[in-house]
């Protein structure tokens, strides 16, 4: 960060950010806006400023503003990102920001896309938890140092933001491919001793459009904002061909 000269913002001519925002329903195009450049401004701040002051009909999604909910993901200067955790200073390209909806999902309006196909992939990949016990049983004992627990731990905490899904070229080419997030989740379930349908999950993972469609480009892992490694989880799934279900 440059050292703060508190007067410069008011006295000098206000520096402006060129923002090109995807507008339209279904078909659309980039529309130019100008927003004052501010310190510590996030991409989500910029979008909000446009919506409040210039384009009240601009549609976009956000909720938590702090990287917890995963609803603010968009394509910023070509890359899928959480807009709430992306500082303008980090991504603006010579003072220009291009903001588009996520790739690989149907566009609804402006920056909002339909996440239903993404959510459906979780079902398709067998990434649905079926507990071995009930609420009346004592909590399962899981050894924190066991191989399974460690493998699950490495891939937990996905917040379903669809950034990786949007970054994956194979999802783009092959509409049947379930994509990185669903497979990452399936991998945590295969490593979860409390999951009652591990064999069924494993079967689904290897169906058409499952882990065999991934070519290990690693774009999912490159873009996941929490630095999870769906590629590593998918490699783990592929290795079960030789090792069977992960041991306890």
């Amino acid at each position: 960060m440059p050292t703060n000269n508190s007067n410069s913002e008011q006295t000098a001519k206000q520096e402006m950010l060129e923002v090109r925002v995807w507008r339209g329903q279904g078909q659309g195009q980039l529309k130019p806006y100008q927003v004052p450049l501010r310190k510590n401004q996030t991409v989500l701040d910029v979008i909000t400023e446009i919506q409040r002051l210039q384009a009240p009909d601009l549609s976009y999604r956000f909720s938590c503003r702090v990287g917890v909910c995963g609803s603010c993901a968009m394509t910023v200067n070509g890359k899928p990102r959480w807009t709430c955790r992306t500082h303008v200073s980090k991504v603006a390209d010579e003072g220009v920001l291009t903001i588009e909806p996520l790739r690989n999902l149907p566009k609804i309006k402006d920056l909002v896309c339909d996440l239903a196909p993404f959510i459906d992939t979780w079902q398709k990949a067998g990434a649905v938890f079926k507990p071995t016990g009930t609420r009346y049983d004592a909590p399962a004992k899981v050894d924190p140092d066991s191989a399974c627990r460690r493998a699950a731990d490495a891939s937990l905490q996905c917040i379903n933001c669809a950034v990786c899904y949007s970054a994956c070229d194979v999802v783009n080419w092959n509409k049947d491919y379930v994509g990185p997030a669903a497979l990452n989740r399936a991998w945590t379930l295969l490593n979860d001793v409390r999951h009652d349908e591990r064999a069924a999950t494993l079967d689904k993972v290897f169906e058409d459009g499952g882990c065999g469609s991934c070519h290990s480009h690693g774009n999912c892992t490159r873009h996941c904002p929490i630095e999870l490694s769906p590629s590593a989880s998918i490699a783990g799934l592929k290795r079960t061909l030789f090792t069977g279900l992960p041991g306890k």
Partner: protein
Amino acid sequence: MTPLNKHQSYFAAIGHRFSGVLLSLFLPVHFLLLGTALEGEANFDRYLAFADNPLVKFAEWGLVILLSLHLFFGLRVLMLEFTSWPATKHLGKGENPMIRRWSSWVIPSVIASAFIGVIFLVQSF
């Protein structure tokens, strides 16, 4: 929509598929010719004369390059999928070391394949 910024691993995957498909098309022809050459002395002589044709040598050179590229790119996928990944979650260290390491494998693979191609040319002329 702006296209996704392409990474080296993207080009590796495209190169892998491209070389794989071309190999599947041309290796059978290669083996067919080799096979017919073994059916009698006359055939073998005819094959040798045929293989001396610069165009045929050029085609063989292409096969060598394709095979070498496919091999290096294939090794890359196998290393990504069969060696263990470091846990990097929440370290804020930027690009995953495993992804970085095997992306930096791509350009050397292309250079090595070009080198192998040169050796083949030197040997065959």
